[in-house]
């Protein structure tokens, strides 16, 4: 199947999947209780409660409520966030930018460090570097994130005092404009090294905490895939051609080892997103994860539904990208089968 046809077909299926997801999200949230809870207080009379319910159409049948919800989304209205005390649609982009910046930083760490470590270890199987990498990887995959994060926080923030907390220094934040909401990018656009350094410095601990586990997963996958590839005949055939070991490793074995690793990287994305909740709470990072944790605790349904819907769509898109990269790396993959 042609690549373009395949992308088109996948894109056409996307809306159907999204509608399916939205129904599931809506139903599950409603099972959790009426969304009106967050607006109630003990002094309200039943009449007042009924009035609020009527104002938000909560007196209508559930399927009508669903239609209202979807209609709102189509018009850019995602509801009111009780936690943020603002429309969800207004707050969401800001929080999303914060989370994306964190997730991308961690993802890049995981991708490059994971592949580099995995290659390094796989090419030196059962020698000292391999064992050391294994220790790093196993600890990364098994340390609970909240524990590791708090540990780093205690050491570098509380004791040594070199690491900052939060997302930026208030004064520096105020010194430049923030058109994208990604503070590193904003700083580059504003041409301010101080702001850039501040943004990166605030990112370090959170992205190490978040990226460590993913790095471990990628590194282990890369290592075992590489070990497997290095035993294949084509590696010996490449050596028999007179290629230097460096080229055999990089151009032949590693390229093939990336094929299974890419799938894992796709899965790792979910791992990262899930991790943002813990990490954002620990480092007081003002992103989606923390907002969501607050919303869950306070029954802020409009925010929750938006979040779950959004992450589901994100997953669908990431999966599509992973499939495409995969097919590009491995020509034997027939798309659409």
């Amino acid at each position, binding site marked *: 199947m042609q690549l373009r046809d395949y992308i088109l077909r996948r894109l056409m299926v996307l809306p159907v999947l999204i509608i399916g997801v939205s129904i599931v999200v809506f139903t599950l949230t409603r099972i959790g209780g009426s969304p009106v809870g967050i607006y109630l207080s003990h002094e309200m009379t039943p009449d007042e409660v009924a009035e609020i319910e009527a104002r938000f159409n909560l007196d209508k049948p559930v399927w009508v409520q669903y239609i209202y919800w979807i209609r709102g989304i189509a018009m850019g209205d995602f509801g009111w966030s009780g936690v943020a005390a603002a429309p969800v649609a207004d707050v969401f982009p800001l929080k999303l930018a914060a989370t994306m910046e964190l997730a991308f930083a961690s993802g890049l760490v995981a991708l490059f460090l994971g592949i580099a470590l995995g290659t390094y270890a796989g090419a030196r199987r059962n020698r000292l570097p391999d064992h050391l990498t294994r220790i790093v990887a196993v600890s990364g995959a098994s340390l609970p994130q909240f524990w590791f994060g708090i540990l780093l926080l205690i050491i570098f923030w509380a004791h040594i005092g070199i690491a900052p907390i939060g997302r930026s220094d208030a004064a520096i934040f105020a010194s430049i404009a923030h058109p994208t909401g990604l503070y590193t990018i904003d700083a580059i656009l504003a041409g301010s090294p101080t702001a850039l350094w501040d943004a990166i410095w605030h990112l370090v601990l959170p992205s190490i905490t978040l990226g460590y586990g993913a790095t471990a997963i990628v590194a282990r996958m890369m290592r075992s895939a590489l070990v497997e590839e290095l035993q294949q005949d*084509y590696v*010996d055939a490449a050596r028999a051609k007179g290629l230097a070991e460096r080229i055999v490793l990089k151009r032949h074995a590693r390229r093939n080892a990336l094929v299974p690793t890419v799938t894992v990287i796709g899965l790792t994305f979910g791992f990262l997103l899930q991790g943002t909740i813990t990490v954002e709470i620990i480092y007081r990072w003002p992103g989606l994860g923390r907002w969501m944790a607050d919303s869950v605790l306070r029954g802020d349904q409009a925010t929750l539904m938006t979040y779950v819907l959004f992450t589901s769509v994100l997953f669908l898109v990431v999966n599509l990208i992973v499939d495409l990269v995969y097919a590009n790396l491995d*020509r034997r993959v027939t798309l659409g089968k």
Partner: protein
Amino acid sequence: MLDAQHGAAPVASVRDLKVYFQTKRGIVHAVDGVSFDIRDGETLGLVGETGCGKSVTGRSFLRLLPVPPGIQAGGSVMFNGHAVCAACAGVGCGACGSTGRQAGRDSSVDLLGISSEDMRRIRGDRIAMIFQDPGKALNPTLPIGAQIAEVFFQHRTEELIALAGLPADTAGAIRRFASQSPRFGDGWLLALPGARAQRRQVEAALAKMVASALAETQVPNPVKLMARYPHELSGGMRQRVMIAQALACNPDLLIADEPTTALDVTVEARILELIRDLQQRRKTSVLYISHDLSLVRRISDRVAVMYAGRIVEIGATAEIFANPRHPYTRGLMAAAPSADTPRGKLAAIRGTVPELVDPPSACRFLGRCPHEAGACRSNDPALQVVAPGHSVACFIDHPAPSGERPTYDRVTA
């Protein structure tokens, strides 16, 4: 000497080669004192049952064994490559029959002793190898053309630069491109207008060289083939690609490790014919490894029969088939040409190849041999000349130091 009667110096001489493997069961003597010559321009067939050490022997030429667990336990593999033709400097001319090589000799080197860099220069250029399963020996993620191109990058940088019409002292990123040794940043350098044009020239020259290497193996439409991926080709086509790649630099010696075992019979015949034809035109020497005696008979000038890490019989093909001496060779022949024996299975010889861990000082065929006698149990027979150019390791043909000698009459089945 075993077969020194022949005139010209052999292209390779294996002497007392010992390759062991460290395993959980102990040290496996996979190849245990093997000696033979590969004469200039000949095809030497190496036959034996599975696990007898054929591949280990073949791979030793290119040091393609994993160490560890492999142990280079001793011996030497002397290689005498042809000298580059003085008239054309390796390009190929009338004087050298367009092989680019002349009859004279380079100095001889011990392939087991040279540095890895020297080994790397020999691999793919002077000694090439084709593998059993062409489906596995080609990289699935690279197009055919790019894989063959690597041989030229490694060994034909000068020719590539000349063919591209660039001066011989071309340096920098372009030379690194033409020798596949890029540095960080070369991608950008090569994208600069001047360099890009030169790179295109090198690429065009490369495509020409790859296409002509492919054309040698009679594939239809070589230029189109270069853009295809291995999985898009049939097994026979893949093996042709492997052969094109192996012979691209006109090697002096080709190691062919069961190159047709993974192919079906009709394709096998055509591939054999192709190897034979290319070998004769280019005067390449071939070590042809197979477990199929009748196949080896078709293609080889001489045959070496291997058993349990040793060569038990070696000689001219006609002589071996007319007058097989070793009981194992005889067993193989009795088993070989039969329609109802699956290929590779040797039904007529009872038992299986013994464990090669700490072999005792006795004949290794003991226990499977129908003629064994007292001498075979206490002595280890060495290869000895029984007729001109024909050597056998069995006490039937030469006296044992002690014990009762076996004869062909005795059959203790």
